[in-house]
């Protein structure tokens, strides 16, 4: 437009030119005045004279006008691009209502921040595919005992599967064992992984240096001593040297040639990770009763899980028919990710994601409510602007820009929060949750959260335009100026109800997990952890033979017991909470079942004299082990209380009774003692049926020394224990001494991690609910100022007004709570597997939640209502 160009160039036109224009303008004015005066009947001469006189001193006026026209803003205002003006306007609108902008911005920040953080963590830890090629094709194949319990697989069974399965393209097997690295460097315990030659290739994993095993090196029963180093061991013992290939390592006295270095990421397969990988050399002639392998398979192209399962089951049926040791055993499969992560972890992941979604939804509902409340107030403004000639598209555009600004602000703050929160979350769960360290802000979830926020704010931000029609506007300002906002009110009530409902669902979930965690923290693991330390020992076959280990263990115990500060010392084959367990089958000797399948599966441990005393496990009947238990009169065993009660009715009844170990031809065990129940595998699972066997009879290689210290003993005891072990067995790996308290603490890490996240969520959710309910109620109360004023001036009691308002709001909250409870009742079923000794219908939790939401709503209503009713009615009326 020409005029605009002129405006923009105004300062450049030069003073003379501007003055000429102003003069022209004045002349035009005078001419128009003359015209009017002449029209009204005045003589043209007289008219001109009068017009000139009225106009006054032209040169002064010209100076003033030019000066005014060159004032501030002359150089930009007219030339700013439209969108920039809109953004500036939107910024002004938000600045003008800082309370609204702050609450809406913070709400979005909390909602988006929490949602993005949690989804990022859960995706990395739980949902992301394994770091293998085409992970969806990978299956974990497992053996089932005759009783239907999952079990490891034997070497011959793995070889059968590899040979006979038609629906898979490849089958691999692996296992891990604790051994001792003797050189290079100081001896230390390592986990040595065993894998068949094709495993890495099947997973699509390549060594980062060197090569994988060849089939020739994996020869049955006689592996070539070659090894792949894990990344950490390579760094630690070889300084990350690139020319490590060709070096040798000494594992328990055997030399292995290093042929390469493993990439990172295999830890997920081996649970806690491995230090070294050597060929498995599975032997078809091995004992079929020796179960220790994990088996993984890749589905053949086009095959389905169901086809592989029936294929596997028919091979297992053939094995059961063909081999005595496999009689009654069968097989099962699971997708590899589920097998490695566990159903409970995956479910926990989904629960957390659902909670995150709920929180984001609550934040959006909250912001929607705020925007709707504001819309009512702004209808008047919009109406006024429309009457003043602003067209609908302009208003829509401006509101759109304002919404975008708000959404953008909230999203930016939310993403900022997520980047700050993620390192905290990582620290919270560090060590116990695999791959947590890798968690970073997940772009997909960040994008999704932004889109949800933008949609919400965009949709409800335009609410002031709803029902704003030209016709309505034409009738004047008054009709729109005090808009009743009835439509918005209805929607607002729906949103308030939804918010209350969402709060209930979130709080119920959190409440249940909190109660569960409290129970878990108070659970009696059966043993005492205070002033107890544990030392893991490995006495490998290659270094110590079967006969040597018993005396060696005795010597270690004797020397450890002499360390100042140590009261009692004993040892066990199961390192507490290492996740490692031993299982077998027993039967009462006097009631031997006919079929091996009917033997009872049990957990068992090898322990030394002193173990029960050191752990603080009470002996309920009989005695613990002593040095004389060498098994002349049947093999002496101690059983757990659970087994004694299940088999014989009571602890005392169990004494001197006999069990048969493993199968019909198994050894006979005589019960000499009954010990109290123990939880040392997982804190949330009791090892109900337990058999303890004596190390003197069964000199197990991997043992954990447990020492009870004098109360408040000096930490220097730890180094004394290490010295004692070293002097008793010079070649043994130098053991680390751990506090059992720390071990127990770590066992609680995962449930605590879940709980802390949920608790943080619940706090944010509760804050959102309170802010939302309070804000809306305060707004509605202010809107009913006039009504309150009138009714109070008519003599209504302020207390009745307050109770009326509270009652109306509580009814709404009541509906919300009812809906919320129904939803929570349905949703809490999903929490079942995550809960420990707490029912999803736990009455305490439900009552607490209902009370919390109810009281919150009541207070959020009561405060602004009181505040309104306390105002002088005259003031209320005049303000209106």
């Amino acid at each position, binding site marked *: 437009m020409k005029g605009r160009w002129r405006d923009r160039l105004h300062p450049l036109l030069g003073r003379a030119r501007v003055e000429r224009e102003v003069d022209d303008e004045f002349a035009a004015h005078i001419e128009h005045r003359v015209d009017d005066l002449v029209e009204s009947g005045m003589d043209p001469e007289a008219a001109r004279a009068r017009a000139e006189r009225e106009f006054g001193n032209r040169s002064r006026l010209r100076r003033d*006008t030019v000066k005014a026209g060159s004032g501030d803003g002359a150089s930009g205002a*007219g030339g700013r691009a439209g969108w920039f003006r809109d953004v500036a*306007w939107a910024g002004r609108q938000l600045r003008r209502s800082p309370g609204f902008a702050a609450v809406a911005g913070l709400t979005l920040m909390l909602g988006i921040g929490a949602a993005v953080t949690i989804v990022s963590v859960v995706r990395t830890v739980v949902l992301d595919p394994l770091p293998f090629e085409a992970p969806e094709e990978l299956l974990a194949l497992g053996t089932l005992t005759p009783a239907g319990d999952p079990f490891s697989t034997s070497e011959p069974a793995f070889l059968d599967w590899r040979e006979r399965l038609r629906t898979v393209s490849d089958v691999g097997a692996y296992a891990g064992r604790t051994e001792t690295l003797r050189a290079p460097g100081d001896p230390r315990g390592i986990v040595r992984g065993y894998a068949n030659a094709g495993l890495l290739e099947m997973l699509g994993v390549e060594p980062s240096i060197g090569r994988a095993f060849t089939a020739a090196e994996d020869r049955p029963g006689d592996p070539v001593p070659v090894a792949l180093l894990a990344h950490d061991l390579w760094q630690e013992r070889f300084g990350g040297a690139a020319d490590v290939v060709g070096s040798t390592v000494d594992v328990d006295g055997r030399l292995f040639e290093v042929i390469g270095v493993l990439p990172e990421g295999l830890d997920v397969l081996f649970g806690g990770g491995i230090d070294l990988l050597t060929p498995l050399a599975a032997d078809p002639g091995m004992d079929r009763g020796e179960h220790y392998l994990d088996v993984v398979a890749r589905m053949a192209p086009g095959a389905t899980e169901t086809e592989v399962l029936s294929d596997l089951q028919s091979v297992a049926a053939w094995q059961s028919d063909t081999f005595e040791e496999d009689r009654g055993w069968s097989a099962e499969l699971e997708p590899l990710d589920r097998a490695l992560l566990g159903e409970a972890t995956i479910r926990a992941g989904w629960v957390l994601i659902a909670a995150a979604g709920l929180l984001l939804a609550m934040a959006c509902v909250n912001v929607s409510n705020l925007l709707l409340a504001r819309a009512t107030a702004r209808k008047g403004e919009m109406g006024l602007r429309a009457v003043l000639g602003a067209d609908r598209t302009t208003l829509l555009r401006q509101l759109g820009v304002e919404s975008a600004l708000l959404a953008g602000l909230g999203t930016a703050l939310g993403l900022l929060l997520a980047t700050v929160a993620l390192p905290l979350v990582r620290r919270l769960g560090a060590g116990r949750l695999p791959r947590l360290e890798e968690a970073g802000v997940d772009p997909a979830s960040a994008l999704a959260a932004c889109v949800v926020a933008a949609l919400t704010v965009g949709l409800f931000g335009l609410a002031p335009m709803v029902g704003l029609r030209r016709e309505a506007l034409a009738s004047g300002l008054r009709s729109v100026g005090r808009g009743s906002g009835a439509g918005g009110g209805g929607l607002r009530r729906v949103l308030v109800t939804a918010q209350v409902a969402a709060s209930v669902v979130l709080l119920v979930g959190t409440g249940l997990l909190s109660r569960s965690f409290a129970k878990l923290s108070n659970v009696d693991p059966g043993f005492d952890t205070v002033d107890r330390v544990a030392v893991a020992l490995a006495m490998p076959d290659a270094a110590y033979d079967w006969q040597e280990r018993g005396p060696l263990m005795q010597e270690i115990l004797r020397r450890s017991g002499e360390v100042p500060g140590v009261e009692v010392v004993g040892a066990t084959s199961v390192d507490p909470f290492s996740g490692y367990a031993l299982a077998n089958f027993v039967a009462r000797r006097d009631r031997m079942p006919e079929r091996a399948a009917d033997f009872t599966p049990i957990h068992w441990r090898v322990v030394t004299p002193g173990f029960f005393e050191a752990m603080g496990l009470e002996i309920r009947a009989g005695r613990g082990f002593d040095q004389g238990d060498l098994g002349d009169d049947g093999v002496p065993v101690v059983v757990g209380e659970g087994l004694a009660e299940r088999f014989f009715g009571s602890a005392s009844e169990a004494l001197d009774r006999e069990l048969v170990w493993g199968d019909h031809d198994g050894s006979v065990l005589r019960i000499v003692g009954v010990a109290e129940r123990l939880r040392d595998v997982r804190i949330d699972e009791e090892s109900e049926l337990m058999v303890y066997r004596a190390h003197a009879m069964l000199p197990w290689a991997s043992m954990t020394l447990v020492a009870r210290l004098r109360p408040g003993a000096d930490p220097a005891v730890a180094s004394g224990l290490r010295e004692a072990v070293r002097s008793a067995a010079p070649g043994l790996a130098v053991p680390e001494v751990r506090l059992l308290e720390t071990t127990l603490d770590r066992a609680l890490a995962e449930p605590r991690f879940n709980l802390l996240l949920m608790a943080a969520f619940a706090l944010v959710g509760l804050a959102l609910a309170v802010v939302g309910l309070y804000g809306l109620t305060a707004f509605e109360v202010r809107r009913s100022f006039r009504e309150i004023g009138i009714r109070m001036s008519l003599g209504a009691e302020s207390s009745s007004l307050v109770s009326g308002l509270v009652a109306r709001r509580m009814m709404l909250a009541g509906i919300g709570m009812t809906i919320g409870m129904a939803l929570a009742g349905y949703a809490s079923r999903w929490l079942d597997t995550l809960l420990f000794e707490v029912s999803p219908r736990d009455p305490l939790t439900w009552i607490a939640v209902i009370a919390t939401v109810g009281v919150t709503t009541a207070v959020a209503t009561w405060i602004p209502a009181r505040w309104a009713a306390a105002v002088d009615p005259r003031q209320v009326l005049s303000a209106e």
Partner: protein
Amino acid sequence: MTRLELLQGTLDVLVLRTLTGGARHGYDIARAIKQLSDDVLQVEEGALYPALHRLRARGWVESEWGRSEKNRRAKFYQLTEAGREALVDEARNWDRYSEAVARVLADAPREGA
């Protein structure tokens, strides 16, 4: 009825208001204010033209030469979007101002002494 002189600053908002119906030239603006106020408000040329140029400098109006209804060449002013917003703001301020003044003066004597 006595005519009132305009308070400083009030003129701007009145000028903006006269432009809501479309473009007007200076003389027309002065006339419109007079008419809209039922002849109560009288605009001085000495204030009108500096005001118009000030508004243009702020970007609230823009101007263009054109032909008036009497076929005279004149400079026409029209509202910009910023001008519309400014009007909303100014009108709101005016409401608060006038209500406040009205409250203060509510009980002042109105009849001649």
